[in-house]
């Protein structure tokens, strides 16, 4: 049994990354290196107002004084920030109609299966696609604007809605928040901006697709979502990158602001190139994601499925400021080969009757290292705050690792805090049960793992849930513990 399992595991681990092609298009790229002039040049290309340039420079000066965090349970080669290029864009810049976008890029996105073309309108997902540093096209813009919804690239937002950007940019993640956030604040090149006006329920799911194409570039995008009073929005994010030998850096910031009675649902499927079997290449994914429930009864929900990136460092957080606000975090993280993930969440309860739920499922295979790091903080005035955390891990193979580091600080006795975690391999008895009923080993594992992740998949929007399920199947198909 063991031998057979091993074969199956090996076979799975040999599966290749299907999105690892690169696109040959003409690109404008900055020379590698980072200094104030680069930031000024970047800001000038983007025709940014003075305040934004000042903000970037302030972040940059702070970043220079900061040192890279070392507390995370990950190991990687030091990053030479001066060797990276901080801006790369396809030469033909975007126009109003999709016809003007370089057909190669459209082809790329078609390969990725994104509904960039309006012919896929039936799927009803509005997409903002970010290719390297710039946003290529935003679909369904006109229809969304009928409802007063602003969904555009960050650069456009800076030009068209400077008052909103100025008000909210950095309000959740200050420019000096942490090393990678400061870097992002200094050099972010584009991203998505969403504003849902009062009382509007966004009629379709909004989506961004990130793709790193150019070599030796870092991708630094910034997403800002503001949900005004009583509004609702569901936002999807997907990521891929070509297979390259060198490591590429992705340091993004996502800020969510939920006003009174509003709900933001943010789902991510992350499928960056994870490096080859020896751990060569792949994306370093150092992302800061945070949301604030500013108003009463607001809700922010993060759902993530992580199968890609060589190293992940990511803690989507919720600050529950308004009374009765709700924070949720659902996550499935898969690591195989030499992938490392240090991911989790922070739930900060400030308002009364605030409630948070954390459900994470970690799956480690091969030599993958999977760490859950979570913080639950219940502050003194957070009366009747409630938290439930559950972190389960499955280990497949004897060279992988699963780690759990929850930090729980409770300052209020009316709070109810529960944390549970289990770590185990896939039970021989479970496999035996399935085998006995004529289910093949491969299918049995897929079934068990999907069952294990079900609680999280249920939180995903429909088409994403299907994708996530397939992604897990592809990644772990045939694996047994």
């Amino acid at each position, binding site marked *: 049994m063991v031998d057979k399992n091993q074969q199956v595991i090996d076979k799975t681990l040999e599966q290749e990354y299907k999105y690892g092609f690169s696109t040959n298009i003409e690109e404008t790229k900055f020379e590698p290196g980072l200094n104030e002039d680069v930031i000024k040049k970047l800001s000038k290309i983007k025709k940014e107002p003075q305040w934004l340039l000042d903000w970037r420079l302030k972040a940059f000066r702070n970043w220079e004084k900061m040192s890279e965090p070392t*507390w995370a*349970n990950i190991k990687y080669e030091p990053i030479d920030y001066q060797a990276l290029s901080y801006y790369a864009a396809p030469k033909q810049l975007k126009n109003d109609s999709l016809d003007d976008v370089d057909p190669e890029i459209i082809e790329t996105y078609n390969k990725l299966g994104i509904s960039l073309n309006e012919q896929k309108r039936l799927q009803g997902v509005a997409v903002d696609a970010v290719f390297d540093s710039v946003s290529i096209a935003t679909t369904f813009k006109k229809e969304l604007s009928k409802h007063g919804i602003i969904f555009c690239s960050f650069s456009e937002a800076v030009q068209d809605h400077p008052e909103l950007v100025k008000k909210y940019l950095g309000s959740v993640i200050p420019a000096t928040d942490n090393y990678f956030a400061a870097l992002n604040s200094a050099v972010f090149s584009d991203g998505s901006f969403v504003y849902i006006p009062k009382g509007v329920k966004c009629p379709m799911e909004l989506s961004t697709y990130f793709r790193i194409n150019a070599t030796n570039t870092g991708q630094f995008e910034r997403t800002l979502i503001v949900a005004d009073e009583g509004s609702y929005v569901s936002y999807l994010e997907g990521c891929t990158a070509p297979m390259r030998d060198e490591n590429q850096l992705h340091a993004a910031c996502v800020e969510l602001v939920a006003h009174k009675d509003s709900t933001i649902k943010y789902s991510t499927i992350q499928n960056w190139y994870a490096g080859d079997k020896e751990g060569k290449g792949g994306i370093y994914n150092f992302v800061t994601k945070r949301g604030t429930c500013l108003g009463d009864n607001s809700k922010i929900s993060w759902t993530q499925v992580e199968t890609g990136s060589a190293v992940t460092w990511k803690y989507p957080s919720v600050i529950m400021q308004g009374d009765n606000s709700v924070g949720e975090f659902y996550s499935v993280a898969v690591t195989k080969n030499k992938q490392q993930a240090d991911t989790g969440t922070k739930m900060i309860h400030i308002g009364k009757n605030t409630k948070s739920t954390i459900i994470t499922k970690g799956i480690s295979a091969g030599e993958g290292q999977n760490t859950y790091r979570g913080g639950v903080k*219940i502050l*003194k005035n957070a009366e009747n705050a409630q938290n439930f955390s559950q972190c389960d*891990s499955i*280990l*497949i*193979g*004897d*060279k*992988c*690792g*699963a*780690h*759990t*580091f*929850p*930090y*729980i*600080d*409770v*300052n*209020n*006795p*009316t*709070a*109810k*805090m*529960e*944390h*549970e*975690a*289990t*770590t*185990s*391999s896939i039970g021989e008895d479970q496999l035996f049960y399935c085998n006995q009923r004529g289910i093949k080993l491969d299918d049995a594992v897929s079934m068990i793992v999907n069952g294990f992740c079900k609680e999280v998949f249920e939180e995903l929007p429909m088409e994403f849930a299907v994708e996530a399920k397939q992604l897990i199947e592809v990644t772990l198909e045939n694996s047994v*513990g």
Partner: protein
Amino acid sequence: MIDILKKISSDFFNKQGYPSKKLENWKFTSSKNLIKFDKQDSPDIVSRKIETDESTLLFINGKLCLDTLENFKFKDNLEIQDLVNINDENVFAFSNTFSNDSMFNLGMSDFESGHYIKFKKNTTLENPIKIINFFENNSSDCRITSFNIFHFEEGSQVSIIEKDINEGTPSFNLKLNKFICDDASNLKFGKYIEEKSDCHLLSYSYYEVGKDVCLNIDSMNKNSIFSKEFIEIDLNNTGSDAKINILNLVKNEQHLDNNILINHNAEHCTSFQHVRNILDNKSTAVFNGKVIVAEGAQHTDSNQSNKNLLLSLDSTAFSNPQLEIYADDVSCGHGSTTGALDENSIFYLRARGIDQSSAQKMLIKAFAKEVIDEFSLSSVQDISEIALDSWING
């Protein structure tokens, strides 16, 4: 030997200084309170006669009192040496966590004399022996350091109850201990700390565990103004079992910190941590528990449980149950809860004619009893229960 170690430690401390809050192990406990204490030079003053019986070993300011040894019932089972005479560096080996902790190094550089106490092969003691740590001093703000090594040889079965007594001016007691448990030994170690004076306690206990060992650690801590205890267990061989049960009662502005690390370095070992804190007034409690399952340590079964009961608005509990697992065929879990007394349970009792205060006391007691019942030594259970009652009513 010991001089070299002391030199290394003193260099280490001089370089590092007092630990800052940036260090993971000191994140929730400030070492600031400890800085004012200076090394005590002549810690031999004893003004009070301590009553001891024939099963007691008395340590005065960290030094074994040789008089009590004369009357000690089991002295034939023991082999005692001054640490100065020991040249085996394995005896002094500590884990990296301790060796890299500056307070531990301060203790190592500080201590003046200590003993190596060996329980001979196949020693079986029916009744528990008592260890009394008596601390006394008359100068204010002094630091008293003790360092002793206990060695349980193959097949020995020993139960120990340890108790601290403080007299005179409040001091800072820095305790370093090492326990070597050889194959097939069985150690039950019960600790009972009830502070009456404002002593600060910082203790480091390192357990080196061999094959098929059964290790039980029971601890009850009440009213320490400042207490931080490090426990590290290395399960180095197969078939061993380590159980830790701790109950802490804290109130006023007391601060209490349990730092537990269990290393599963071999297959087929089990470990269990159960820590409960009851907090009142402005007190704080920290649970920093960690289990590391090394590569190849298959069939490990490990569990951590931390429960905090907050009785007042101003009390704070920090709970960090952590797992680091590098083997796949294991079963590890942890649970942590923090909250106040359950309203429904109080209502249930009130509905049956029990007044509010009695109902609360009953529930607090029930919460604490669940740990006390797990204690391996019945005498520690008894003392703890009495201490608990007086704490609840006091």
